[in-house]
């Protein structure tokens, strides 16, 4: 019997593992995702997040461990899971000879006609030209077509592998908006990305992968607090960055300055008004070469891994 009665958990993975040769791509992942939540899976390239998602829908067989998704146990080729879950793959390859409408129909084979209609509605909202052949589509348009197919069927869990990768800002916002609307309807969403700032907008939980293992499990609000205390100064030259670093280290409310060649990452301390602080900092550097780029309140995945998890060289 493949199907089990549903619980309040939409996804449960216990010790899920998979190796490719000597490489342990996914190493004993334990993860429980509550029904109706939006969980972001983050990690640098090669951290195992895509393999983990593929394991969950049965595209790749695990070497060890078990999983239950949307009440269906992951067994055999995983068809019981795929009937209850939709997936948008991270790898983009479609049949160029088909029109977008034909491709959508092909992708939704085995689903209801209603699913196809809904997917068309999503594609329309994204502004995809459905009569055009897929080989005329850009990389981003292909990704949106796969996203539309994953949003079509009426399922309780959707797994999206890097759904915003390679999209322009307007389309990215539209995709994130559609994800948020879907979440509001109570659908469980598991999505991967390596852009922290994007997923924290829609996720209520973030899990971080590194070398096939689950490194951390965070509340996005906590990360936003952390990000608010971060500043990044980018200089044209390393010498300019070094000169600025010497001054900034003595500045009030700067807890730490980390220099990575021409980039300075500042950890601010006890900041009530970060913008005013930033103005003060830039004013104190006015005799030096100005930075070419300046960011406040944004934390990149690299920053987070380095500062919080102590993982360097991503």
């Amino acid at each position, binding site marked *: 019997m493949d199907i089990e009665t549903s619980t309040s958990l939409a996804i449960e993975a216990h010790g899920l593992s998979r190796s490719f040769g000597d490489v342990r791509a996914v190493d004993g992942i334990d993860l429980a995702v509550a029904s109706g939540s939006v969980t972001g899976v983050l990690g640098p390239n090669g951290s195992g997040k895509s393999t983990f998602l593929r394991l969950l829908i049965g595209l790749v067989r695990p070497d060890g461990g078990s999983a239950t998704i949307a009440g269906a146990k992951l067994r055999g080729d995983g068809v019981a899971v795929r009937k209850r879950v939709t997936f948008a793959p991270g790898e983009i390859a479609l*049949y160029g000879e088909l029109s977008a409408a034909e491709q959508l129909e092909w992708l939704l084979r085995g689903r209801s006609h209603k699913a196809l209609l809904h997917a068309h509605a999503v594609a329309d909202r994204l502004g995809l030209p459905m009569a055009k052949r897929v080989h005329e589509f850009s990389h981003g348009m292909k990704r949106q077509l796969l996203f539309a197919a994953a949003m079509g069927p009426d399922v309780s869990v959707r797994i999206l592998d890097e759904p915003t990768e390679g999209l322009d800002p307007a389309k990215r916002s539209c995709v994130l908006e559609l994800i948020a609307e879907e979440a509001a309807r109570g659908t469980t969403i598991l999505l991967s990305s390596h852009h922290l700032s994007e997923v924290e907008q829609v996720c209520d939980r973030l899990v971080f992968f590194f070398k096939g293992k689950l490194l951390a499990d965070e509340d996005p609000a906590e990360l936003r607090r952390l990000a608010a205390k971060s500043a990044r100064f980018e200089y044209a030259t390393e010498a300019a960055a070094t000169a600025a670093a010497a001054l900034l280290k003595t500045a009030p409310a700067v807890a730490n300055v980390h220099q990575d060649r021409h980039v300075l990452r500042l950890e601010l301390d006890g900041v009530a008004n970060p913008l005013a602080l930033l103005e003060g900092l830039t004013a104190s550097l006015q005799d030096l070469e100005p930075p070419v780029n300046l960011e406040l309140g944004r934390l990149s995945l690299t920053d987070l891994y380095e500062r919080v998890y102590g993982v360097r060289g991503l």
Partner: protein
Amino acid sequence: MKLNRQTRSALFAMLGYTAALQLMLSAAILYWPAFRENTGALKVLAGPIPMLKDMIVQLEDKGSVAYVLSQHFFKGCNVLGVAAATLFAVGAVAGEAHRGTLEIFLMRPVTRRRLLTERFVSGALQVIVPIFLTTLTIPLLLARVDEVGSLGRYLLAGVHQSLFLLCLYALAFFLSTMGRTPLKLAFGVLIFAIFNFSMYMVKTVTHYSLFRLADIQTFLDVYEKGPNWGLWAIFAGTIALLFGASLFVFERRVP
């Protein structure tokens, strides 16, 4: 019924293969009277190649039946059929892997067993339907040259030919479930087939050639004596075994 571009392209490939077989068959049968007139001269010409000479002797002894079996099955279907079986099989899974579409092929809510069975059956039909379609025209063509033949017996020869080709198709299909480059696989299978055909033409090693199982004498035996059940069971077993192995590999394949 609206067919998508992929189905239409598969149908066009099958129609092309059917047309080529039909052209070869029609030309051969219409040439039969001239061939019959010249068998003596052809025997002399084929003298340096004993296997070829033996074939012409067979044609001389058995008349139009042996001639049609040799032209349509031994020559036409063995040559074009082997190429079609290889080309229709190698793309089944390796083609998807090569173009990067294996992931979307596998991610739909359909079992892998069903996906592979559908691919296998549709490719197999592409290989064998043209054989039967063209075989159906043999009596009509023979009537044009004042000859007769049993359609039922020619169709039995068609069954034998289909089973033989399906063995090769199943081998190419199995390799496709493991591979990523259909072109390399096609080269490998075609070189294997050409090597076997070359062996067939060399008297000292001819018995080791797979084409001994689909030569003029074999087709004549099927035509005259009826189905070779033992050999057909071996063919069917080989196809089933290779398909089973393909399923085993495909169930575990990573996109």
